């Protein structure tokens, strides 16, 4: 019998070898954020729909608030097992009824974000299809083809390979920077105007709309904590990756949305985007760059949308799986495919919803870009804003019960400041929802959409109460993730006498 004698901490070394460093986590986070989708699709549509121009400074302001929020968020993540989803944080901080309410809000929000992307694909792919094949299919036909692909890939768990995503992401960022530079060296009227970056824009009427759109641009940053378990040094890697991702997103989007206003002139950006839609950035760049570069950018816009669709589809499917695993949703949603490990039921549920939405929009003849992509995105972004705000409050509550665990800055100062700022953003968002949707202030939509989350939250709380009465064992495990499977919810104090080493590392800490 041969026994290899080992020295040093081989176990930790062997495990760390497969783990992720800061750049890898940043890449994973940013690839879900799909920069070209935001710059070409969201930013241009925002100018067109809201008719106001403060978006660049809104990106910087929201970036600052989210960085502040992340201080407490990543600190709390260190104390969570399977720190994947906002609802686990809310459950641990504000109690299980709020946690389930958060879970329902998240389901609505992430589904809206995913489905909304189908609306932009037509606008993104049509110019290419026309140019290459001379066909102009209906948007819903393109959407259904993409939908079918996503549905199959989701169930088969064929995810886009990480290195392909990294290459696409790098190419997207390079194209965006090239376009920005082109816009900035060719300003309208010959002078670079800084007006869209003026902090005064934050006090303009309708700013709540811009703040929601900015939050939408950041969606995905929250997923950094999913990699806690897989990162080389969770205490350092995840916080560093989160702050890096937030900073990159803030600067990239602020500069890009500002550069557009420089190229058109701040006074004309609304008019130009209303006329050109997502074509705006390609037209602006096309005036000064070669056609090949613009074509590459158009292809990247399509791949960016596609990557975002897969990413949000998988996020939603996993969310449904996580809820099924904890029995917050029926157990069937906790099932996975044996062969592939895909969260099969969650994936199918998301696909069914996506197909239904595409068909309804096509049947009613609604506008895919504004009423599906932009409404879906901003509605989903608003939901994520609500979740971030609730999570920020949860961080305060969580550490209020554990004052010795972190320093005051992480425990209380940053979380309180971010909660106040987020609450103001939520207030402004609700107040300016009509501007966000570009509808008349008397439109029923302006109340119906925010109210959808209130309904989701009420259903969630009611469902939590039903669970607490009918299935107390399920209720007790809400928000515990992995711990739910092993029943470690009870305090770690109960152990057989004297047989545990002092230096034992407890996962729950």
């Amino acid at each position: 019998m041969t026994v290899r004698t080992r020295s040093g901490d081989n176990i930790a070394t062997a495990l760390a070898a497969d783990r992720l460093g800061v750049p890898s986590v940043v890449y994973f986070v940013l690839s879900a954020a799909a920069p070209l989708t935001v710059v070409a699709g969201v930013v241009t549509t925002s100018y067109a729909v809201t008719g106001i121009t403060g978006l660049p400074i809104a990106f910087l302001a929201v970036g600052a608030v989210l960085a502040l929020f992340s201080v407490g968020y990543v600190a709390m993540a260190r104390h969570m097992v399977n720190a994947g989803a906002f609802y686990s944080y809310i459950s641990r901080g504000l109690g299980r009824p709020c946690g389930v309410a958060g879970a329902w809000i998240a389901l609505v929000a992430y589904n809206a974000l995913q489905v909304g992307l189908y609306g932009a694909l037509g606008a993104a792919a049509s110019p290419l299809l026309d140019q290459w094949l001379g066909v102009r299919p209906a948007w819903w036909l393109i959407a259904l083809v993409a939908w079918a692909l996503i549905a199959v890939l989701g169930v088969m768990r064929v995810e886009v390979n990480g290195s392909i995503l990294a290459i696409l992401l790098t190419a997207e960022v390079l194209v965006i920077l090239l376009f920005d530079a082109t816009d900035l060296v060719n300003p309208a009227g010959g002078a670079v105007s800084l007006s869209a970056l003026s902090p005064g824009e934050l006090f303009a009427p309708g700013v709540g709309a811009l703040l929601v759109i900015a939050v939408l641009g950041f969606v995905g940053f929250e997923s950094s904590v999913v990699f806690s378990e897989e990162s080389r040094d969770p205490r350092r890697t995840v916080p560093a990756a989160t702050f890096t991702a937030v900073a990159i997103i803030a600067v990239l989007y602020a500069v890009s949305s500002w550069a557009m206003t420089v190229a058109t002139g701040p006074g004309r950006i609304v008019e130009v985007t209303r006329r050109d839609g997502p074509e705006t950035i390609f037209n602006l760049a096309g005036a000064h760059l070669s056609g090949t570069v613009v074509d590459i950018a158009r292809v990247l816009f399509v791949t960016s949308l596609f990557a975002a669709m897969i990413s949000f589809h998988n996020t939603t499917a996993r969310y449904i799986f996580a809820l099924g695993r904890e029995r917050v949703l029926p157990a069937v949603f906790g099932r996975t495919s044996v062969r592939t490990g895909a969260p099969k039921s969650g994936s199918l549920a998301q696909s069914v919803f996506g197909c239904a939405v595409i068909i309804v929009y096509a049947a009613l003849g609604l506008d895919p870009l504004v009423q599906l992509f932009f409404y879906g995105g901003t509605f989903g972004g608003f939901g994520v804003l609500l979740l971030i705000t609730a999570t920020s409050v949860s961080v305060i509550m969580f550490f209020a019960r554990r004052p010795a665990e972190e320093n005051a800055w992480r425990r209380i100062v940053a979380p309180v400041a971010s909660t106040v700022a987020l609450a103001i953003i939520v207030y402004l968002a609700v107040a300016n929802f009509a501007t966000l949707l570009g509808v008349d202030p008397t439109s029923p939509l302006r109340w119906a959409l925010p109210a959808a989350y209130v309904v989701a939250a009420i259903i969630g709380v009611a469902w939590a109460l039903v669970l607490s009465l009918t299935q107390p064992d399920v209720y007790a495990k809400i928000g515990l993730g992995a711990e739910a499977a092993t029943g470690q919810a009870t305090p770690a104090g109960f152990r057989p006498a004297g047989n545990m080493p002092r230096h034992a590392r407890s996962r729950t800490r």
Partner: protein
Amino acid sequence: MGLADEFFLIAWDTAGSGAPLLHPRATALGLAGALLGELALAQRITVWRAEVRVTDPRPVDNALGHRILHEMVNAPEHTDVRTWLAYLARNSVEEVAARLIDGGLLRAAESRVLWRKNVRYLATNYVNGAWPAVRVEKMLVNGDRMTPSDMALAALVEATGLLDTILLDRRDRTAARRYLATFMATIPPPLRDLTGHVRAAVGDAVLSYRA
């Protein structure tokens, strides 16, 4: 035949195509859990909640188990079950396959599809390969009395999501799950906690999957 050997024969279609029936991460974690389970059944280690520790460092009767036990003795600072599952899962498929091949129960058939190497594992004797799955199915459907080892095997099969694969008849599944829930209440705590961690690790792998 050890717990990990039987789990391997259930997780791979060794009596047929030689291809895995279960996705790679769950297979690796299930085998890691089975290897720890063997040591727990041999009274060498014990698992309590999130922690595992060596209770008896005397050698076990197989080289692989002995090597793992030796590693655990040498790394007393690692008491976290999930750490050991992750560590052992790195090579568990190859190591258990090698043990089965050494025992003359399995042979590996390598093929290449383009640039990808594909290993199939085939039982040298059809009956040996198919038997563990049939045995677990019969026990669960008939509600037979089970040894701790059988319980651990059935619990691992359920934890990794393989239950529906061995219970081909849908009508059997409800009864089998009910029986499983009954005996999980009587399974020795170390095996209950260990299989619980395997279930949690498999679930987490679904959540944090990356290509």
